[in-house]
């Protein structure tokens, strides 16, 4: 379950609809509501504060530009925005040589995800749920896929496991996430 109630999700959708009509105030409101969430994600992907700021700005600019194409049938606004943020951040990772540094970081901090997760109170409940249901390889594969922009082959290399296994981990991991979400709803 997304960390937002139904009215919040509905409010997000209305804001995006207003953005699509060119209302800057709607963008301002959405920014105020979700920038901390986006910041958390981007910080996880990028290390350089300047890059982080640029990626966040880029996320909301893209949201403004793509507001008219948003379709609630394919996901909540926060899901849509998370993917935009990830794309903006990964673009920056791929642009420079910082990608290697990110991988290095993952190597030196194998449990970074857990460490960050435990430090945040509002994610604790969900994290416990995930940790208890997702296997470590599934979680690692999903994290690498999302936060580093690694391809599945690169994830296989990083995890030192065959590519087929990585595909399996990703697929089963996503299915479990969905099942958990349904159950929690």
């Amino acid at each position, binding site marked *: *379950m*997304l*960390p937002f109630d139904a009215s919040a999700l509905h409010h997000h959708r209305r804001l995006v609809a207003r953005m699509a009509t*060119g209302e*800057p105030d709607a*963008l*301002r409101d959405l*920014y*105020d509501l979700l*920038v*901390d*969430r986006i*910041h*958390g*994600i981007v*910080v*996880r992907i990028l290390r350089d504060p300047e890059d982080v*700021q640029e990626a*966040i*700005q880029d996320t*909301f*600019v893209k949201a*403004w*530009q793509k507001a008219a194409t948003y379709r609630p*049938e*394919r*996901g*909540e606004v*926060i*899901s*849509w925005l*998370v*993917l935009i943020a*990830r*794309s903006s951040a990964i673009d920056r990772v791929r642009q420079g040589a910082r990608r290697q540094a990110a991988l290095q970081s993952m190597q030196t901090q194998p449990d970074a995800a857990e460490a*960050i*997760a435990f430090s*945040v109170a*509002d*994610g604790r409940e*969900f*994290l416990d749920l*995930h940790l208890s249901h997702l296997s470590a390889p599934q979680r690692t594969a*999903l*994290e690498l*896929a*999302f*936060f580093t922009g690694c*391809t*599945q082959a690169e994830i296989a290399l990083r995890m030192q496991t065959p590519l087929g296994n990585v*595909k399996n981990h*990703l*697929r089963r991991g*996503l*299915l479990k*996430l*969905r099942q*958990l*979400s*349904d159950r929690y709803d």
Partner: protein
Amino acid sequence: MTDDFTSETLAYLLEELDAGRRAQFEQRLAHDAAAEAAFKACADAFAEFVLTQAPGQPIGDDARERMLAAVIRATKAESRTRRTQWRNYFWPMAAAALLALNVCQWIFGHRGPDTVRVATMISEKTGKGTPTSETARTNPKSANGIRGVSQVLPQETRPEVMEVLERLSVLRRENDHLQASNAALSAETQRLSQQVSVLTAASSGTTRLVAIELVDAASYANGNRNGLVDLARTILTTPGVVAASSVSEPSNAGLNLGSTSTSNQTTGTQTGVTSSFGTTSTVASAGSLTIVDSSPLSVAPILNSSPTSLATTTLSGSTMSLTSGLSGTTTLTTNTSGTNPPSTGTSPSSAAQSSEPYAWSVFDQSQSQGYLNLYNLPTVSAAQSLQLWVQVVGSSTFENVGTIPSQYYGGSGSVYYKLGSQSAIPSQILITVEPSQAVPTTPTGAVVVRGP
């Protein structure tokens, strides 16, 4: 939800699908509500996972405001870019429209108000801006007119548009001036041309020019002509008038340009042929043949010497009909006119492309002299020769004018031919292959080329 769909959903969310598969996947979502619902569930579940793994982190107020300001700036710039895109097209289109309107005015001779009036009309139509004064409408070049336009323009584009309008105004004035000069020069040229034509025709005694083009059957069938008109343009100052470079034997015939007279019978007698190379024929002839230039023309090799048909080209602006009363006896003479023939060093462009034998002839009645350009003549055996035959107006038989000089065989060249009768006009010309020693009195051999 199948495993494949799950994998594809994840790949789609992570932007790992190539463009083709992505489009295919989106199409599936668009047409399959169940798949779309499953996709939404996956997307939200994945976002939930991500948000849990990377929970929100507060941003400092300064950074928050700074980033928001940057976002707003960027979106405004983006909106401006959208507007600018339209504006980028608008002004060039407006300028093009103004130019087009002015061109139309020039073409159709309407001396209406210029671009300022157009701009004024636009402003009136849209109801924007201050209407221009009547002075501005009737005197568009006035400062009031320009000011009137400037008042309806957006501030940021005003200088640019005003510059264009000023430039248009200057160009308009320059164009008026040039048109006036051009009209005066054209009139003067016309007057001088007339004068030169009259003087030239009077001094050379030329009354009419007859041009005949001889081509082979295939060229005739295809409508191919070999540049007689090009030639005519080089020797005519005005339709029907020869521009003789030297004057000889001014005729008392006077000018009869453009008139048409009837044709009469001409009777030829046996004469010889003389060329500047001393080639002499002993056969019966209706006139004389003179080599114009010994240097062969630069033409393509002969490919087909089988001739037959004919074609006629009428000189531009002149009648092809033949003039004057024809009577008397043709005599053998050498070329004594002194009239320079048209340049043979430069054959018509179209002629250079042909490999068929062909020829063209221009006949100056005042001199009773024809000029014949021959191209791609065939080679013949030593016992044979190429004979030139002329049928004059009113006659039904061909009369021999002379032998084509042998140095032109297998190549090209130019000759004069002169008819015995001062009034004879050729109606048809024929070149045939005949025995060298016993040239018949009428054409019997293979026809190389033939003209009307």
